[in-house]
């Protein structure tokens, strides 16, 4: 394969600090971490002149809750056999994932300045061979869920007790491969698998309702045999509760209702911020709002 600039490695100091912080993390701590991730995302997208800022900001609280409080992963040993698996199927929101991983010490936060720069490990979509903490290369939609099903099946076959989480975009659910994976997860009763839908109700060009209606979405997951939890995807208490293990032995689907562009007033719920790049002035305003 073509050689890239480098493969990133753990920032051991940051990883140790993160591990210590995790032992006493609470909702205020998650909120603080999320604000930091959001500030990084806004800055990264401005610097790169590219990025999917609206979805980055809608998924941030989900990522921060998982990495900040839920996932059993070790940034200093990111390929440990019994680690929890996390897959960002909506790979275009790599910016938010990179910022979250950097906050946890999977690699240095300094690397975020290379986001989408020539030869950077931080491509516009995540690459597991370059970025520790990434389990599979996503980008084309509808890929992450089947891979997550395979991860969950492997845990069962190997008698490992790790859990697998996959985050899906809501528009992404228009890809049929997700429903193939849902049937498999249900058939194999993968209670160790949690699929979280970042339900921000907007896709690239319009709302999901205008583009291709997803509702009744919870009913669909129920019909596919999932234990369904519908929550506010920006409420840490609800996120923590919803990411708890299955109580039924069936796979869990979390419909996390979110706001695209969350945290920056002029981006919130605006379809054009799917992948618009903020001006320097807008970045300044956004950082102010995210620093309160």
């Amino acid at each position: 394969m073509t050689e890239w600039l480098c493969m990133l490695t753990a920032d051991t100091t940051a990883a140790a600090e993160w591990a210590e912080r995790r032992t006493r993390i609470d909702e205020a701590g998650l909120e603080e971490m999320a604000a930091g991730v959001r500030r990084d995302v806004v800055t990264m997208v401005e610097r790169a002149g590219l990025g999917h800022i609206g979805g980055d900001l809608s998924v941030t609280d989900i990522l921060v809750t998982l990495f900040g409080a839920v996932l059993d992963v070790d940034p200093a040993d990111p390929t440990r056999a019994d680690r929890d698996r996390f897959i960002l199927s909506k790979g275009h929101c790599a910016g938010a994932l990179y910022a979250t991983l950097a906050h946890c010490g999977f690699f240095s936060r300094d690397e975020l300045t290379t986001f989408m720069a020539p030869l950077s490990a931080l491509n516009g979509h995540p690459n597991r061979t370059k970025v520790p903490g990434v389990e599979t290369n996503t980008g084309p939609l509808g890929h992450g869920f089947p891979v997550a099903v395979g991860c969950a099946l492997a845990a069962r076959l190997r008698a490992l007790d790790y859990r697998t989480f996959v985050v899906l975009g809501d528009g992404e659910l228009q890809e049929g491969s997700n429903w193939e994976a849902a049937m498999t997860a249900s058939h194999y009763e993968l209670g160790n698998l949690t699929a979280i839908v970042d339900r921000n109700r907007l896709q690239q060009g319009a709302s999901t309702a205008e583009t291709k209606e997803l509702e009744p979405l919870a009913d669909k997951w129920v019909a596919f045999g999932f234990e369904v939890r519908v929550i506010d995807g920006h409420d840490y208490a609800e996120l923590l509760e919803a990411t708890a293990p299955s109580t039924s032995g069936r796979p869990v689907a979390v419909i996390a209702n979110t706001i695209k562009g969350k945290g920056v007033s002029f981006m919130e719920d605006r379809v054009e911020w799917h992948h618009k790049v903020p001006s320097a002035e807008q970045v300044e305003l956004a950082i102010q709002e995210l620093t309160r």
Partner: protein
Amino acid sequence: MTFQLAPDAQTYDCRKAFAETLIELARADERIVAVCNDSVGSSNLAAFRDEFPERLINVGIAEQDLVGVGAGLANGGLIPFVSAAAPFLTGRALEQIKADVAYSDTHVILCGQSPGVAYGELGPTHHSIEDLSWTRAIDNLNVLVPADPVQTRAAVRWAVANPGPLYLRVPRLKVPELTPEDAPLEPGRAVLVSDGDDVTLIAVGTMVSRAVDAAERLRADGISARVINMPFVDPLDEATVLGAARETRGIVTVEEGIVTGGLGAAIASLVSQHHPVPMRILGITGFAPTGSASYLLDHFGLNADGIAAAAHELA
């Protein structure tokens, strides 16, 4: 080293060798699992399922899910043999092959069953003539096509021992044994079936034994044909190809696949840049008409007569 086929040589379906070797290896290595798309029968996995019921994962008729699940199983530390009819495995799930397997650099063995025109009368929807072109175009994906049961067994063993993405095309059309048990199998290494210095026949999979038959006919016509079996369509044995280009008057390639991007196209690309020689690229030239597999191979000139005729044009 020269191998000759007895006129009445027994012929074999390579799927049996595939399935038996998989079971043999699975007994010794519990990481090996099989994943299929309701293809337990057509992938010859019934015996595997009976012996390892937990390790046969059937995702139903869902090829995108099939390949993604395979990548996830590899992520979880298992060695998945993802097995499906070649047209559906490669055609329906090509993006999963690219992103989840090759680009993600996972140890997934993609097993394309009943490739080429093996499904005969079922028609072009069920023929897998494009798979070699498609898989060869994907970076970081080895493409391996055994020519007989011996090479099929070696291929399955190689696939387990060598982590990385692999497309293993498992022939279904019956072929005779022609590879010695101790013949090496490794990427970028061809097998010289018989030497010759007038013209070279480079064949893959089910076409190797037909090339051997063609060489016999050419010998009777006073033409010495070198016969090369190229099990790895990617990466090619470039040294052997360029040696043939230098030492013989031309190269005939033969494959059970479309001529626009498979073995012949790969060899043409190589020799045209480094040592141009006349070539004839034999294969399937388009959507096939109705007919049995053997009828279709004759229809497209993929038999000893057709190969010998092409060689005559170069020798």
